[in-house]
């Protein structure tokens, strides 16, 4: 068993080195003024992490936007905090604790919604603020405030090999699930009752999608942090939704927005010496406003132009 884990670890390290080497080939095509920043090992790790996080957030973002799960994403990301603290206390890897409390909270929200008269927005609000408060209290007892800041706002430049491996594994799982269950997920997002009528097990799809969302959030923690991760789960999908009427195209654009925001944001944050998580999200938000203004079909400018021409 130990040997197997070791072999897997070695394989993971080799895979990471390979992916970084591939990314560096692309980076070195860029002018020196840009590529110079990526000569350090920590920058290369940060780059790969950003690309992966941008990609899986981009994929999941389509479901979050179309299923109106923005608040749920926000809730899960906050609920992850006590898990991080408990894992720290018990000496576990942080992502196990994060995953457990994130998943528990989403199940709790579902249960309150289904069995009481409390509506879903209130159920989410009370569950995630409660969990977040527990996390703050726990962390104030056990860790320094810099530690808390890193969890809340991300620290992509300090990403360790283990966290990078986790992000890689999460990306592979997310990609596989979306590929293997493409049709059930699409049908469930579009028309759950039809999925039910066709005999699909919609609770499995529902909770599977929530677990996938939790996994994505946990994998993105180091990069953008608890507070801002939800932006990466909304903005790329919303941007893509303005630009296309095809689901697959939406997913591609969304991944493009996610990856480009993460990479450009990372680079800008180093060059300008500002917080990386915030910069990444700001780049994504800029993409959104560009799409909002200039989208050929659903953009404001062309719509005004057409109206003006007609009138």
């Amino acid at each position, binding site marked *: 068993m130990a040997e197997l884990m070791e072999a897997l670890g070695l394989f993971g390290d080799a895979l990471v080195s390979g992916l970084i080497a591939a990314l560096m080939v692309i980076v070195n095509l860029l002018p020196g003024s840009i590529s110079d920043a990526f000569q350090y090992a920590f920058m290369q790790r940060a780059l790969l992490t950003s690309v992966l996080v941008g990609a899986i957030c981009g994929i999941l973002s389509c479901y979050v936007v*179309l299923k109106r799960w923005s608040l749920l994403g926000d809730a899960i990301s906050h609920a992850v905090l006590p898990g991080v603290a408990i894992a720290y206390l018990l000496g576990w890897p942080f992502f196990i604790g994060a995953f457990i409390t994130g998943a528990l909270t989403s199940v709790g929200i579902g249960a309150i919604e289904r069995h009481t*008269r409390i509506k879903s927005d209130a159920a989410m609000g009370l569950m995630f603020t409660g969990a977040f408060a527990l996390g703050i209290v726990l962390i104030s007892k056990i860790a320094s405030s810099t530690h808390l800041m890193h969890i809340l706002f991300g620290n992509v430049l300090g990403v360790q090999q283990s966290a990078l491996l986790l992000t890689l594994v999460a990306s592979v799982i997310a990609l596989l699930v979306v*590929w*293997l269950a493409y*049709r*059930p997920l*699409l*049908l469930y*997002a*579009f*028309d*759950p*009752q*039809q*999925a*039910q*009528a*066709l*005999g*699909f097990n*919609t609770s499995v799809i529902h909770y599977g999608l929530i677990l996938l969302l939790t996994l994505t959030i946990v994998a993105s923690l180091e990069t953008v942090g608890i507070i801002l991760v939800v932006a990466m789960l909304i903005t790329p999908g919303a941007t893509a*939704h303005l630009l*296309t*009427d*095809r*689901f697959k*195209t*939406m997913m591609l654009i969304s991944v493009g927005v996610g990856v480009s925001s993460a990479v450009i944001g990372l680079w800008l944050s180093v060059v300008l010496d500002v917080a990386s998580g915030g910069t990444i999200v700001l780049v994504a938000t800029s993409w959104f406003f560009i799409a909002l203004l200039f989208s050929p079909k659903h953009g404001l400018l062309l719509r005004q132009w057409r109206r003006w021409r007609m009138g």
Partner: protein
Amino acid sequence: MATTFMSTTLGQAAVAIDIKGLYAAYQRQPVLENINLQFPAGKWTAIVGPNGAGKSTLFHVLTGSMKPLRGSVQAFDQPISTHRKAGHIAYMAQREAIEWDFPVSVWETVMGGRYGHMRNDPLWRRLLPSRWYDRRHAEAVREALQAVDMLGLAERPIGALSGGQKKRVLLARALAQQASILLLDEPLAGVDPPSERLILDVLARERLAGRTVIMVTHDMPGARRHVDHVVLINRFIRGVGSPDEMLSDAKLAELAVSSIEQSAHDAQVAEASSFTAAQG
């Protein structure tokens, strides 16, 4: 309260869906009580009742999105879930039940009706890019779109359709499933006269092909000539019979009165229970 069994009025026809002793409730508010109904196979049945009478709830039970409190539902002598999994039950939702902003085309939406059957294809094939894989199911989709006269708009995003076109796409999705039982929730609501005629013609053809058609509707002058049976429902079954019997003015007035009595009765019960609560 006459809880008639359909079989008594309809002779020896085979039974497509058999509902026994069904009760359903939303948050402890009873919506359906003591429903015993048999839908004969190969016939066209309309379920008629005022708003809030439990018609849609009955469909939610049949499609599995709502669990009944009590009672059983069988289709062709097996649990209905077996037939759902086999893709034998097609469902046409109300227009409002769907997110029309969703980024899919008319073609992809109707292809959704094939998703149940796709589970029978081997996994490796399903994982091929849909450009190749979907061909196996394209014929059914094309036929369905042709039947509702929407083939020309197959590549349109669904958000760009008119109200009647949206209804026709939803009907096409149900047709593409080539199921033996068609459940249609208000297929004629808010539809222009040409679309209404087209939908009724399509359903008449499906019935002739031996399919069981069950539709929910709250007004049905247009459908009257087509359907074989009418079920009047308002929480309880209020009557089962031919369209002429059930849709007489006297019968419909009775149905409307029953719903007023119902709410008066509910109010009394609520008052009585709050009174006892205050006493205790």
